[in-house]
């Protein structure tokens, strides 16, 4: 076992434990914190794959920005401990079961496929060969994927304008 494999097992284990903790904790703040731990472990996995830029962006966007907003909402709404049986149980139970079965099926499918070694082998070979730098990503974004990139930024702009319109209407009604 080389260093890379040990690190992979470490990050994978932390990310799994974090993910389980998200749904096991009763208090939403602790769930949110566990999710941050998972994001960090995933950033570590990205670094192992040679995708440094993606790892940094993962931490900046998810751990640094989105989860802070999660915490804000949880604190401002002052949510107490939640239990599955109480608030969410009845209505969402069927939905949860269907989603659970779907995810389980996906997991089994991937596990069975990886037994054939093809998926894992190809992933390993690409990881060993390529260390993606920010330069490469920039090059790709502004040449091959220019149109999708611009479309994405338009979608974000639309969301931005939508938020401003919503907030504006509220403040006008108040005054």
């Amino acid at each position, binding site marked *: 076992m080389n260093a890379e494999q040990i690190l992979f097992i470490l990050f994978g284990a932390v990310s799994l434990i974090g993910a389980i903790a998200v749904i096991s904790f009763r208090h939403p*703040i602790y769930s949110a*914190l566990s999710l*941050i731990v998972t994001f960090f472990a995933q950033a570590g996995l990205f670094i192992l794959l040679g995708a*440094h*830029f993606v*790892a*940094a*962006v993962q*931490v*900046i966007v998810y*751990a*640094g*920005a989105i989860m*802070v907003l999660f*915490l*804000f909402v949880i*604190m*401002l709404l002052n949510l107490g401990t939640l239990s599955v049986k109480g608030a969410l149980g009845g209505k969402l139970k069927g939905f949860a079961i269907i989603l659970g079965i779907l995810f389980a099926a996906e997991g089994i499918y991937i596990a069975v496929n990886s037994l054939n070694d093809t998926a894992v082998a190809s992933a390993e070979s690409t990881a060993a060969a390529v260390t993606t*730098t*920010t*330069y490469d990503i920039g090059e790709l974004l502004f040449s091959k994927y220019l149109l999708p990139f611009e479309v994405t930024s338009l979608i974000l702009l639309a969301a931005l304008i939508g938020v401003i319109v919503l907030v504006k209407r509220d403040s006008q009604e108040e005054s």
Partner: protein
Amino acid sequence: MENSQLLVLILSSIGKILIIVHLLLIGVMAMIWSERRVSGWMQDRLGPNRVGFQGILQPIADGLKFLFKEDIIPDHVDKPLYVLAPAMLLVPAMVTIAVVPFGSAITILGHEIPLQIADINIGVLYILAVTSLGVYGVVLGAWASNNKYSLLGGLRSSAQMISYELTLGLAIIGILMLTSSLSLREIAKAQGAYPWEWNFLIHFPAFLAFTTAMFAETNRLPFDLAEAEQELVAGYHTEYSSMKFAMFFMAEYMNMIVGSTVVVTLFLGGWHFFGLENMGGPVWSGLISFGIFFVKTAIFLFVFIWVRWTLPRFRYDQLMNFGWKFLMPVALSSIVVTGTLWITTGSRLIVGIGNVVSAFIVASIVAGLLVMKTPKPTIQDSDNQLTPTALDAIE
């Protein structure tokens, strides 16, 4: 990689980490002393001068006092997070230094050792990522204290940190475009030996925006609303005592030191100073470059204290307006202007002049709009919406 090279890499890394972490901790102590002494000097009083020569051992006395104080954990707090929060603030403050190059390179026994703990190719992004994590310590400490003042302080501080992070990130982009690298070592190297070749002149508006955002990120005056004593007792660390309280303070000073090193690297030429860094042999030039970097950082830290006693605290709405409506447009305009002028002319001089001109135009437009838009607060409005303290501030 050969085994001997690997050994050198590991040993030198451990050595560098030990030296830098201890320098950082000593730096915190030096900052506590110099902050109090410089404050005293600026207010025409003495400051602590009893313990040791000129009071230089005062931080050690303070530290011992903190250690021997009773470590109170109030009954009503959320215990795990309450204990974790100071560490969550201190760790991000500390690990940022890992990517900052604090000198050129030293050659020892035929091995060239770069004076930097880790030269990673996403250095700038790493700094942005790590600084964005500092918010958690503040927010969780505030929330876990289960105290209204703490929570208000924490919310203020985190809103402020999130807002100013944007400016922090945007202000760097101009530099990245000219250097075409995210590695801090490359950015420091790209700046020449003379002050007029450093980034702060080419990107002057971005430099000001970045420095301002840095003050906001470290929660220093004039942006210390998180711990506004008159309104919030002590803000997010009201409920903390003993060494946990001290850790919050250490984190603040550490953020200042690390922030200064980042500013020096990005804008003030890193370890360059009139070619002095190339003097002497392979060993001396490395040490001299480290000395230059050290002095530059110290000067910038003095500015931190200087500003504290020069500018009064902002009001909260002023803070948000300033961050979003003033600093952000200036930083954005600097990106557009730098990009266009660099592509079309390729001259650093023109980019520098264009940046200043565009920042001036944007700033005056924004200032004009803000003055026209802001309704003057009437007494009736104030009675309904503003707290007595805010009312005092207006009058």
